[in-house]
């Protein structure tokens, strides 16, 4: 077995305990894999930093812990992670896949990353993504597109494409992504891994470079539901530096997953699974639809109660989302003025007026980012605010109410993650609206701030993965992970 072929954190820790593996050997093996298979998943490799971390842990394992992994004190001891390049790490270049931040070295570390490193995780590098997390295919990176892990003519999905592709291709054990309208779940589905977005407010956004503040959430991308649960519980919790974090108890979700999986698929018995009628519309690829239908049948046969539900405002989701997200984005991206940080080109240095200076600096945004800034600036501008931003925020409330009514009747809701499997590079990049519509199933839960997860369930004829999307009520991560664990069990183990 290749050294990097682990699927679960517990397997790595067992190997540490048995003395057959050290953190430093493990880290080395990932760097070897990274260099042998160029997927362009990393923007910055942190080899020296990672090896220094691994060396310290290897030393601690022997001397401080007498060869026994400190699972309780450091549940991520020696676990090599990829960090999406939208999250800051003190002293490590963080670009957000944008030319405008090409040389940016943050002077502080994101709260979520700090919590993982405190738990013993090792940062292998900063993962490629769509510029400022704006995209569904990872073709919008200033550092070039990320390649799909198994089909080189396909996109890995976006915006957390590097994080997804690298986990699937074993270039890191697990990774962090961020999700605004589906940016964790869609690439997880395209690449055949688990991707989870918690309830909005669970994980601090401090150090997450903002795209759309009221929607952005960090989440884990892993090879198993159990590890997604573990990473999520370590990162969750109130942060005084983020006023939108929730003060809510965080359970041992990974233990719930293990308990559920020990009990077996009988856990489906009595679980009320909602199937939104609006989600099974024309435009879904038949193979995706079949895969979802088939897993729903399997759940039913294991005792789940399948309930048809209605989320009547679903058709407005993409329109609502794009107005809200681009409006917030146009505001969040105002800070890139080249004064305090960022790249200053010769043209900008020579600018004679302030106006000219700003324009030369901001010429470093990519074209999709510019499109969204223009759209957002328009939606917030005088005379249009009420018709766009305010109205969209009202429809957003209605969509959230739809979910609240639905959750009176069901425990979880299921749907496809995306109407299709991974599409071809260049297939949608010329048509932004078509690209936006690939997020149709992931956006509603984002607008409502609900926890959701993508679990791989099948592959299409070409061998491209298909994911199942599960949504739970606010703060019901325990329920979400339980359902995810059962689905994982139902399709036979972890990832394919």
């Amino acid at each position: 077995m290749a050294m990097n072929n682990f699927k679960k954190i517990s397997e790595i820790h067992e190997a540490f305990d048995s003395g057959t593996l050290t953190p430093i050997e493990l880290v080395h093996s990932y760097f070897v894999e990274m260099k042998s298979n160029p997927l362009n998943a990393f923007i910055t490799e942190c080899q020296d930093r990672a090896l220094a971390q691994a060396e310290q842990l290897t030393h601690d394992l022997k001397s401080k812990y007498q060869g026994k992994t400190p699972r309780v004190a450091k549940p991520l001891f020696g676990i090599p992670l990829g960090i999406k390049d939208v999250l800051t790490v003190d002293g490590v270049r963080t670009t957000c896949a944008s030319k405008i931040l090409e040389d940016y070295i943050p002077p502080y570390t994101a709260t979520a990353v700090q919590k993982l490193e405190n738990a013993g995780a090792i940062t292998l590098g900063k993962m490629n993504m769509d510029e400022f997390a704006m995209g569904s295919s990872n073709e919008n990176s200033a550092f070039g597109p990320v390649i799909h892990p198994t089909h080189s003519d396909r996109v890995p999905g976006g915006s957390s494409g590097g994080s997804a592709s690298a986990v699937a291709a074993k270039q890191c054990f697990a990774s962090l992504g961020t999700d605004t309208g589906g940016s964790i779940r869609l690439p997880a589905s395209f690449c055949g891994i688990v991707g989870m977005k918690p309830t909005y407010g669970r994980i601090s956004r401090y150090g997450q470079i903002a795209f759309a503040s009221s929607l952005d959430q960090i989440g884990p991308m892993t090879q198993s539901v159990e590890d997604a649960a573990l990473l999520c519980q370590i990162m969750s919790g109130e942060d005084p530096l983020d006023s939108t974090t929730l003060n809510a108890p965080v359970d041992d979700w990974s233990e719930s997953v293990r308990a559920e999986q020990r009990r077996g698929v009988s856990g489906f018995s009595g679980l009320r699974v909602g199937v939104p009628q609006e989600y099974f519309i024309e435009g879904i690829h038949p193979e995706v639809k079949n895969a979802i239908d088939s897993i729903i049948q399997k759940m039913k046969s294991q005792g789940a109660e399948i309930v048809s539900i209605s989320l009547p405002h679903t058709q407005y989701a993409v329109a609502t989302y794009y107005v809200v997200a681009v409006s917030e984005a146009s505001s969040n991206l105002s800070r890139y003025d080249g004064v305090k940080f960022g790249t200053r080109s010769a043209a900008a240095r020579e600018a004679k007026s302030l106006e000219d200076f700003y324009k030369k600096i901001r010429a470093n945004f990519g074209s999709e980012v510019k499109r969204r800034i223009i759209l957002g600036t328009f939606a917030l501008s005088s005379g249009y605010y009420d018709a766009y931003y305010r109205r969209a925020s009202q429809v957003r409330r209605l969509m959230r109410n739809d979910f609240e009514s639905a959750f009176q009747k069901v425990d979880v809701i299921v749907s496809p993650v995306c109407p299709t499997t991974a599409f071809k590079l260049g297939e949608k990049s010329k048509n932004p609206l078509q690209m936006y519509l690939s997020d149709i199933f992931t956006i509603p839960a984002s607008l409502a701030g609900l926890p959701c997860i993508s679990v791989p369930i099948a592959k299409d004829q070409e061998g491209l993965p298909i994911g199942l999307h599960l949504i739970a009520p606010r703060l019901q991560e325990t329920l979400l992970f339980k359902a995810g664990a059962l689905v994982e069990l139902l399709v036979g183990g972890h990832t394919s």
Partner: protein
Amino acid sequence: MNAFQLYGMNVGPDTEWETVIGLEVHVQLATESKIFSQARARLSAGGSVADEMPNANTTPVCAGHPGTLPSLNQKAVEYAVRTGLATQCRINLKSQFARKHYFYPDLPKGYQISQLELPLCEAGHLNIEVGAEGSVMRRIGITRIHMEEDAGKNLHRDGFSLVNLNRAGVPLVEVVSEPDLRTAEEAGAYLRKLYGIVTCIGVCDGNLQEGNFRCDANVSVRPKGCTRFGTRTEIKNVNSFRFVEKAIEVEAERQKQVILMGGEIHQETRLYDAQKNQTFSMRSKEEAQDYRYFPDPDLPPLLLGQDWVDGIRRSLPELPDQKRDRYRAEFGLSKYDSSLLSSSGELARFFEAAAIKVDYAKPVSNLLVGEVTRLLNDSGLELAQTKLVPKQFSDLAALILEQAVSVTAAKQVVGVLFKDGGDVPTLVERLGLKQLNDLRSIEPLIEQLIAANPKQVAEYRSGKEKVLGFFVGQVMKATGGKVNPGSLQELMIKKLKE
């Protein structure tokens, strides 16, 4: 000039004009940390912004680094609520922060966090006294008071500019008045009253030089009797009360002249040049502003409990108007003196700390209102920047009441204390200012004078009583003014009549 129509009224050379003024005052709140970051907001006492290393009090949050988020300072909210309560505002238990967008180098995020739709405080007022002896009271409405963050500062060099973000994120409240003010004098009275309130309730350090209290004035003119408002201009950032008054006067006059010459007033921002005593337009190109306000998604609504607000209300100290009335009633001070002493928190606190006995109040007040005010005006210093402490004034008051020093001598002492500080008894001793009350020792001097000036003695004895002044003056001169003037006069008359 022919008569013409303006705002539906006939205008001609004889038209009486009225100025309409609304003020927007930015008050820096004296919290330790900034409004949304944990950077230092406030300099140590007596410190100056100019002495700080640029950008040393700047964190990634203040500099708007990617990934940073705001977290609201509780003290700033408390201070803003205090300001609202002290100006009779309604406190909105639900308020919302909003982003105001514009590009400028001193605005690190490209937007300022402010409040628009749901400000913290609304619908307050304060009373001002104008006219001779402050005989006319006017009630000036306060539209709203909202919280926001201060911007940084741009320094202009030759051919480029430098940005210092130490001030970026200092908490501010913006106090917006109704357009209720009609004269520059009223505007000045409003500013002084507001200044007195925010320094009295301890929410603002009140240092005008450091920009703790800054004013923008919206000014328009219209024919008297007209009910419509004229087009207004905004005069930005004038940081002395006197200059605000002058700026309003010249701007109103300019607008009148423009209109009478057949011109039009443009809604624009103007700056006041104190040296030339005129206002000028800030921008040549009139750029349409579109601030694109929207609720800040990083900051959920600010919800306050009525109990918390009531607690702050109960903790409010005596306000300047109440102080003024008490000074008159309790100490018998004049209206002018008690208004002046209560016009700044610092001065009032100083006065009260010095007037530890009721009969000290008058001499202390006289010295503060007269000598100290004059010294402060001449030097441009704030009271806190001088070496004066209340104890010195208690000591001086005691000596004046005991007739141990004359009022003239006391003023001289204040002059020295102002510059060098020190302890009053020592200083009086050193300067030899102790008043001579026992005149036996100077009898020989008086007799000598009488002997040396027979002509003046004769004049006095023939009824020219004015000559008495000559003799008293001579003695004062010879003794350095230390002699108790009342006793001296008495003795002198006696000796001259002998």
